[in-house]
C-alpha cells in the first residue's frame, strides 16, 4: 500500500522492484549478498583492530595466568610452563585476592555513588542557571583536565603530614589538639583519602554529562507537571530522572569502569599501603607482574579483575533495566 508521502515515481519504482524480486528470487538473494558483503567490509577494520588489540591480548593474558611465566620467558621468547591454577590458589591462600577484591569493591562503590550524588546535585544547581553558571562550568573542568598522576601528586601535598593543608585544617578545627593527622597513614583513612581525590577528579565530567542530559528534558512536560501541582521532588523523580536514564546509564557505567581500572591515584598516593589497606586489584596486578617479575601471577590477578569488572557493570545494567521496566 503506497504511502501518501512518497512520490508517484518512487512508488512505481518500488513496486516494480518488488515485483521483479518476487518474480526473480536470484536477483533478490544477489542484492542481499551484496548488502551483506558491504556490511562486512564496513565492519572489517573494527573487527580486525578489536581482535588484534583487545581480544588476542586478553586471551593471551588469560592463558598466561595458567602458566609459570617469568622474566626469562619474556626475554628469551620461551613459552610459560603450564601450572594449572597454581597462580590463583597461591594468591587466594595468601589472602591477597580476597583482600584486593574487597578493597576494589569498596573503592568503586563509594567513589561511584558519591560522584553521582555530588554531580547530580551540582548539575541540578547549574540547571537553574544561577549567576556565574557559565564561569563555574568552565572552571570546574580544570580537575578533569589535569592528568591523574598530577592529581595524585597534588593531593599528596594536600595530605602531607605535617605540612599539608588537611593537617593544618584538622589542627585548626581541633583547637590544636590533633597535631599529626596523616590521612594516608592510617589503615582506616587511607582509602577515603584516595576516594576524595578521585571525587575531585571525576565529579566535573559527570556533572557536565548530567547537565547536558538535564537540558534535553522537554520544558513543556516540566511546565505541565508544575501546573498540575507536582512539587520539585515529584518532578525530579518522575520526569527528570526517567528522561535522563540513558545519560545516567552511560555516565555511571563509564565511572564504574574508570574506577575499576584506577591505578595512578593509588600509585602516587599510597602505593597500596598502609599495611595493604589500599591494595586494589590494579595495584596487586602491577606488584605481582612488574615488581616481582611474576607475569603469570600478575595475569591471574588481571583475569579476576576483568571478570569482577564485567560482573559489576552487568549488575548495574541489570538493575537499571529492571527499574526502566518498572518505570515504563
Amino acid at each position: 500500500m503506497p504511502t501518501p508521502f512518497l512520490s508517484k515515481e518512487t512508488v512505481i519504482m518500488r513496486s516494480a522492484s518488488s515485483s521483479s524480486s518476487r518474480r526473480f528470487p536470484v536477483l533478490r538473494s544477489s542484492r542481499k549478498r551484496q548488502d551483506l558483503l558491504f556490511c562486512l567490509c564496513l565492519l572489517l577494520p573494527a573487527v580486525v583492530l578489536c581482535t588484534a588489540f583487545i581480544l588476542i591480548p586478553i586471551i593471551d593474558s588469560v592463558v598466561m595466568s595458567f602458566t609459570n611465566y617469568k622474566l626469562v620467558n619474556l626475554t628469551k621468547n620461551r613459552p610459560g610452563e603450564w601450572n594449572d591454577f597454581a597462580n590463583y590458589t597461591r594468591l587466594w591462600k595468601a589472602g591477597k585476592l580476597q583482600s584486593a577484591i574487597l578493597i576494589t569493591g569498596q573503592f568503586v562503590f563509594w567513589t561511584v555513588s558519591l560522584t553521582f550524588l555530588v554531580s547530580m546535585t551540582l548539575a541540578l544547581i547549574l540547571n537553574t542557571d544561577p549567576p556565574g553558571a557559565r564561569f563555574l562550568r568552565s572552571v570546574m573542568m580544570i580537575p578533569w583536565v589535569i592528568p591523574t598522576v598530577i592529581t595524585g601528586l597534588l593531593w599528596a601535598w594536600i595530605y602531607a603530614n605535617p605540612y599539608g593543608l588537611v593537617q593544618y585544617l584538622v589542627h585548626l578545627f581541633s583547637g590544636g589538639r590533633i597535631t599529626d593527622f596523616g590521612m594516608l597513614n592510617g589503615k582506616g583513612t587511607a582509602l577515603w583519602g584516595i576516594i576524595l581525590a578521585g571525587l575531585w577528579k571525576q565529579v566535573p565530567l559527570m556533572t557536565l554529562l548530567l547537565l547536558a542530559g538535564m537540558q534535553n528534558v522537554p520544558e513543556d512536560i516540566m511546565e505541565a507537571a508544575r501546573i498540575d501541582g507536582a512539587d520539585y521532588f515529584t518532578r525530579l523523580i518522575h520526569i527528570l530522572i526517567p528522561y535522563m536514564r540513558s545519560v545516567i546509564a552511560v555516565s555511571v557505567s563509564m565511572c564504574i569502569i574508570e574506577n575499576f581500572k584506577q591505578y595512578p591515584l593509588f600509585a602516587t598516593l599510597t602505593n597500596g599501603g598502609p599495611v595493604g589497606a589500599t591494595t586494589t586489584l590494579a595495584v596487586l596486578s602491577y606488584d605481582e607482574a612488574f615488581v616481582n617479575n611474576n607475569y603469570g601471577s600478575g595475569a591471574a590477578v588481571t583475569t579476576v579483575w576483568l571478570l569482577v569488572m564485567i560482573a559489576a557493570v552487568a549488575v548495574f545494567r541489570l538493575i537499571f533495566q529492571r527499574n526502566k521496566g518498572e518505570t515504563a
Partner: protein
Amino acid sequence: MKKLLALLTALIMLLSAGAVMAEEKEPVTIRFYNYALSETAKADWWKNTIAAFEAANPWVTVESVTVDYNSMIQTFTNDLGSGLSVDLILGEVSWIPALVEGEFIQQPKDVIDPDFYAGYYDYVLDQMYYKDGVYAVPHYYTNSVVFINKDLVEAAGMDAAAFPDTLDGLKAWIESLDAFYKDSGKVSTIFGLTTAEVPATGSNINAMFTAFGGQLLTDDGKLADLKAEPNATAMAEMLDFYKYLIGNGYTQENLKLKDYRAAFGAGNVVAYVDSSWGYAQIGEVDPKAAEFTVTSFLPTTMGTYGKGESLVESHCFLIGDGLSDGQKEAISLFIQHCTSTENLEGYLNNIGLAFVAHEGLSGCRISPILEGAAKGVSHVRKQTQIGPMVSVQKQLATMVLDYTVNGASMEDAVAGYIAQAEYYIDQ
C-alpha cells in the same frame, strides 16, 4: 740506484701502512642503558665522560639509552624481547637477581681486565654475589649515613661532631634536642627514619635491622628465623626504637627518603638516616647546604647484639650477555675510564656523594661532608641477594607501620611480616 732507493722507500711505506692497518680495531658499538641520563645533574657528567671516552677510543661508539629509573627493568626486558641488545646497564644491586634469572647479564670477571677487577674491595663485591658468582661491579657505594644539621645541633648547645656511639646515648641526644626545639616550630623532625612503603625504605629498614644485629636472609636465600636469637631481640629492639621515635614525634610515620631530603635541605630536620647520595636532593633545595651538613655513621652499640653495621648500597655496572670480543674489550675500557680518579673525583664531590669501591681510587678525594660517615665506611655486612628482594624488604616498612601506627602487637606484626616475606620468597 735512484730507482732502487725509490722502490725500497715505497716498499717500507707499504709495509708500515700495512702495520697501521693491522693495529686499527674493528669499530664496535655498546648499547648503554643509563637512568642517570634522565637526571639533569648526572646527565652532564655522563655525557662528558662518554664523549671523552669515545675521543680516546675512536673505535668504540657508546650508544646511550636514556630510561627513567622506575622503568629500567621493563624497558630492557621489552627491548631484549624485541631483539635489541642490552650491552651495559648502570643499575642497582637489588636488580641483580632479576637480571640473572632473566638470563641477560654475565659475570664481570669474564669481561673486565683481570688486574683491574682484582682492585675492587671484596666487601663491596660480596654484595653483588648471586647464586654462583659476582654479577656486577660497583661504580661507587654507600653505607647507612646519618645526615646532621650542624647549625641546629650547635644552636642547642651540643657538639655536632660528638654523635653518640650507643643506642642509649642516641636516645639521650634526641631527647635533649627535642627539649630545645619542642615549641619552637622550627624543627619538624629530630631524628628521621623513613617508613613509607616503597623499595628504598625497605632497604633502609633492613640496614637498621642489620645495625641492631639482625640478619634478614640466610646465606642460601631463605628468610632467616626471626624468632630465634639474635634476630628476635634485634627485631624487637628495632621495632621499639621506631615506636619510640614515631610515638614521641621525633620522626614522622610514612615519610619517604625524598621527603626527609627536602625537609633537611629546608633546615627543618636535625638528623636523619639515608644513603650518601641522598645529599644530591638536599643540595637541590639549598645549594649552600654543605655549610650546615655533616655526617656520621650509626652508633656502634645498637641494643643487645647490634654493632651498628650497615648494608652496602651501590650504583653498579651490569654487563649484558652475548657480547663480541670487541664489545667485551670496549666495556672493560669504558668501566675503567668511568672508575678513574680523574673522572670520578668531581662526581663524588659535587654530584653524587659516595665512597670509592676500588683500590685504584684510594687517592680520590672524598667530599668533606662525608668525613664523619667515612670512619664507618667498611663497617658493613654481606646481604644475600634474592629475586623478590624488593618486595621482601618493602614488607619491612609494612611491619613497622603495623606495629607503630596501626596498633598491631609486636608478635602479630612480625608474624604478618614472616607470612608475607615467605609468600614472595616461595613464589
